[in-house]
């Protein structure tokens, strides 16, 4: 029977939730990296025992962790699992080193972006928000970082190099941080075209490369952000998350700061699909594993009040690719619930009956084994959840 493994990053460590295909009895391991913020944990689709984790701390900076046994043991890449390297050993902490390329394609230094007050500000590495393992090579993994840039490792996360064409394509000085920092939080690899990658940045917008990261272009036409001096500007939109179904790689679904959006031409043009949502503010968005027109969001009241409307935690599902949404409430708290669901904290498994999972800032991870019809908490009392990913295992 198939199994699932839910990888949870929290404010105080990582947790791994495991179950068989029925998904009714769960075992919990963790906290891994106790006390550290774990922004993201994600497994390789090539080798599911290979898992990458972003471990970070305001005190001690960025650590990249890797497991080669499905999360049982972890090591900084280059260090044998569970062992400290011998004195004089290789400099394993290169895996923690993210150094911006300061020379763009035109030879000019890429040194500034827009600060909150509109002045220019130097790029400063803060943390890794998102790790995206390659679809074809377990040793290749991408990292989305704050301040926003895209890095890649081709040696199992031992060494990282910036794909600097993203910052270098010309709009970098107009990027600005959102309230959570200027983070590159979404990386989508096109399964039909190994040279095409989508990324999204708060608050710059969405971007696409069609040549493996050498050059990039903004893909924000159709986005409308009232907080911008020009609401239809090419750059400056606060994209919260983007999702794609692997069978339709040109169709993208976006949860923007406000507005749920859709593109059917690889991001070249977007149209709003918020429809009958009670509020179209939110962070997460995801697509059913087998139904490319079935989309999930968790509406949040507003940018000033990051909790569900009326204290009711409701996932909304559209089975028509947007506009028509139904609330999914069975098993979710329908009173006095004031948690948030952060942008990387929803995932779907690929079992026949698609499982949907999300984590809250209140420390609950909810799961549904029937595509959202019914929900149950897998765990109640974890630290605040930053990210949720799921692996479907044979």
């Amino acid at each position, binding site marked *: 029977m198939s199994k699932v493994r839910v990888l949870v990053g929290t404010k105080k460590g990582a947790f791994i939730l495991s179950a068989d295909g029925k998904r009714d009895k769960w075992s919990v391991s963790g906290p891994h990296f106790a006390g550290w913020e774990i922004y993201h944990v994600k497994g390789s689709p090539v080798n599911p025992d290979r898992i990458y984790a972003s471990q970070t701390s305001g*005190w001690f900076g960025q650590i990249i962790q890797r497991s080669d046994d499905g999360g049982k043991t972890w090591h900084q890449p280059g260090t044998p699992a569970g062992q400290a390297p011998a004195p004089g050993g290789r400099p394993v*902490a290169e895996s923690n*080193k993210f150094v911006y390329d300061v020379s763009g394609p035109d030879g000019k230094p890429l040194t500034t972006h827009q600060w909150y007050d509109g002045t220019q500000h130097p790029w400063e590495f803060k943390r890794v928000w998102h790790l995206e393992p390659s679809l074809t090579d377990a040793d290749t993994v991408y990292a989305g970082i704050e301040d926003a840039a895209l890095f890649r490792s081709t040696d199992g996360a031992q060494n990282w190099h910036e794909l600097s064409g993203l910052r270098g394509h010309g709009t970098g000085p107009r990027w600005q941080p959102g309230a959570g920092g200027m983070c590159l939080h979404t990386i989508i690899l096109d399964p039909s075209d190994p040279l095409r990658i989508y990324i999204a940045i708060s608050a710059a917008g969405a971007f696409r490369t069609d040549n493996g990261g050498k050059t990039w272009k903004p893909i924000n036409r159709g986005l409308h952000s009232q907080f911008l001096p020009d609401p239809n500007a090419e750059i400056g939109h606060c994209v919260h998350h983007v999702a794609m179904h692997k069978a339709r790689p040109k169709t993208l679904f976006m949860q923007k700061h406000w507005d749920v959006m859709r593109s059917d031409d690889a991001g070249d043009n977007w149209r709003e699909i918020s429809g009958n949502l009670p509020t179209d503010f939110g962070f997460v968005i995801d697509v059913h594993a087998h139904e490319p027109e079935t989309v999930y969001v968790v509406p949040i009241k507003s940018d000033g009040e990051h909790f569900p409307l009326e204290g009711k935690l409701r996932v909304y599902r559209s089975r028509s690719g947007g506009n028509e949404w139904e609330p999914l409430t069975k098993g979710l708290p329908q009173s006095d619930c004031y948690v948030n669901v952060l942008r990387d904290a929803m995932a779907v498994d690929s079992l026949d009956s698609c499982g949907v999972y999300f984590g809250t800032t209140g420390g609950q991870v909810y799961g549904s084994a029937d595509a959202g019809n019914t929900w149950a908490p897998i765990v109640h009392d974890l630290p605040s959840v930053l990210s949720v990913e799921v692996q479907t295992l044979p």
Partner: protein
Amino acid sequence: MIRVVLPQHLRTLAHVGSEVTLEVGGTATLRSVLDALENSYPMLRGTIRDHVTLQRRPFLRFFVCQEDWSHLPADTPLPKEVTSGAEPFLIIGAIAGG
């Protein structure tokens, strides 16, 4: 022999106990002690000093014989009490309260 006391999270990261001992050749300074620490425990690179600039991370401080050495030049020689191992070199994280 120089004794270095690490914050809890760095002990976990380096797989060590409350303190580590280091041999530092020549005149021991703030910089040479940190170099020796990172050579012996490479997983700590970037956690105490920035990878590139080698500047102390803002939420960490260095204490020597009950004095704050966080802002002294990196080439300041360490006192005999520390180089002899009688007193530890302390790396301390800022306290996070509720």
